């Protein structure tokens, strides 16, 4: 029988290749980037240059090379996104699975607590945090994004666990003598992979956008460090004149998000087809 795999769709390959380029670029930023991203070689002569051979993405008002900043920006933007997603997925899966496995009263209480969390807008928390810091240190930013991003995933995981717990194959495993640990490891978790992987890719994309938004507002990654968000912000004041400044990091952001979303969708479809 012919099986649909993730690979059988060209869109998947495009997405994976795009993401691989970004990841490798971020990882080897010092090698890939032609200049030091924070260096201001000649703030008069080299500022605001449009794209050229020497500066393919142009330069900014401080004469910094935009390509180098975008490459290093990928490092920060994607790194923050990755770590924050790691935190939120771990928390979401753990909380959701615990709630679903416990069931009954414990589950009800855990879900009401979750409701309470979800009722607090992220922005409000952020304002509270900004009262403590002027601009967020990057670790705090990661923790903030991670700790506020797991609610909906834990909901989904809990729902899945509740359904799986009652499924006949789990009952069959219990009937054959499997203990709780075995049921969780061999019967529940493998069936949660699809949900987790999909949620992680989509969450990753979401966090990248969020970080860009925060940096754009000037409360994310502080200058002179480069993230896609604050590069876009650099150009925001003069979009018509310095279009290259916002366009390239914007495109990078767009490409990364589309690639992640596509990949998430494809993975979802593939898991569904093997049900």
């Amino acid at each position, binding site marked *: *029988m012919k099986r649909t795999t993730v690979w059988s769709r060209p869109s998947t390959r495009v997405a994976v290749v795009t993401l691989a380029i970004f990841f490798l670029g971020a990882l080897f930023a010092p090698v890939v980037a032609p200049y030091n991203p924070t260096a201001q070689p000649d703030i008069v002569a080299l500022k605001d240059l449009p794209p050229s051979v020497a500066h393919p993405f142009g330069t900014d008002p401080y004469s910094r090379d935009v390509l180098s900043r975008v490459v290093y920006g990928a490092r920060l933007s994607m790194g923050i996104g990755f770590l924050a997603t790691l935190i939120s997925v771990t928390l979401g899966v753990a909380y959701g699975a615990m709630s679903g496995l416990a069931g*009954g*009263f414990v*589950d*009800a*209480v855990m879900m*009401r607590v979750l409701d309470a969390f979800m009722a607090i807008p992220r922005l409000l928390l952020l304002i509270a945090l900004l009262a403590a810091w002027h601009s967020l240190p990057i670790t705090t930013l990661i923790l903030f994004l991670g700790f506020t991003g797991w609610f909906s995933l834990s909901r989904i995981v809990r729902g899945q666990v509740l359904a799986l717990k009652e*499924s*006949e*194959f789990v*009952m*069959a*495993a*219990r*009937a*054959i*003598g*499997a*203990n709780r640990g*075995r049921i969780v490891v*061999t*019967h529940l978790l*493998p*069936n949660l*992979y699809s949900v987790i992987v999909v949620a992680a890719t989509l969450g990753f994309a979401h966090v990248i956008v969020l970080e860009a938004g925060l940096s754009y507002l000037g409360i994310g990654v502080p200058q002179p460090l480069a993230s896609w968000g604050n590069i876009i912000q650099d150009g925001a004041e003069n979009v018509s004149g310095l279009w290259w400044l916002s366009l390239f990091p914007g495109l990078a952001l767009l490409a990364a998000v589309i690639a992640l979303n596509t990949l998430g969708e494809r993975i979802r479809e593939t898991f569904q087809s*093997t*049900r």
Partner: protein
Amino acid sequence: MSDNGALLSVKNLRKEFPIRKGLLSRQVGAVKAVNDVSFDIARGETLGVVGESGCGKTTAGRSILRLIEPTAGEILFEGKDVRALDTSGLRAVRRDMQIIFQDPVSSLNPRMTVGAIIREGLTIHKLAEGSAADARVSQLLDEVGLRPEHRTRYPHEFSGGQRQRIGIARALSVEPKFIVCDEPVSALDVSVQAQVINLLQDLQREHNLTYMFIAHDLSVVQHIADRVAVMYLGRIVELAPAEALYREPLMPYTQALLSAVPVANPAVKKQRIILQGDVPSPAKLPPGCVFHPRCHHPAKDVACTKIIPPLEAKAEGHFVACIKQPPTQVSWEQQQQAGGTKPPERYLPTAALR
């Protein structure tokens, strides 16, 4: 019903599901899914359990294996009190008591290979390891009519009948004595259904298995069962040797059930007892006899709404829960005290007969 020679003896089994409502899931009521059910199954016997959806037959089967925790009652398996077992004791007894499910799709873990599914029991109970386990898996696959090379495939690559065979192989892997067959052929096509029924019968003979065969299809149960229990709204309303039940169904519900089965013979234009309305909700059981709102027994009266009919012998080995079918322990005087106006009278309409 005595304990003599019974492999499994179930007494006054009850299972209630709480109905929860509100912010913190407080219990506001209960669904009496299994309501005071007692029966024995002898070694090597097949007890058929029939009834319509929601009658509690599946819950009863699962409660016996403690896949669902029963609310009350006694379950004796080879004299052991199953309800008193701790986790490890229960795990040990599950080698002897297995289950085959109805749905060939949801009863197999989609992320495990067929080999891994069948092997799981061997690993858990330390029955075989390594190449010995491989050999055993192949042997089991062969026994249920599949090929050894199927072990590396995933459940979704198989047809419904083949998946059901995988489920059977899984149950057999731990060499059980007793298997609850929970509607194992309901989801299958007629010709495949026949293959699986024959397989189950062959395995029963070869391994001296005891079956509790749950089904909604009366013709399948007649074919495979030695004795049949008919359930309605959580209770056993009739329990008799298969032959007697089909020849002389005494509970008015059984009569209606039998008359409703379509006959594959257009020459027979049979009469039919059409039951009025739907099965009441198990959360709001009718008082007295649970069947009285739909009953067509001519002697039905107020007493039926007051007295819970005991499951009592009407003939040798033929138990019926109806105070209007003589003989009955609930005397006519008692029935009159409860408001009864029509004395018990034997009722066996021709529509119920084949």
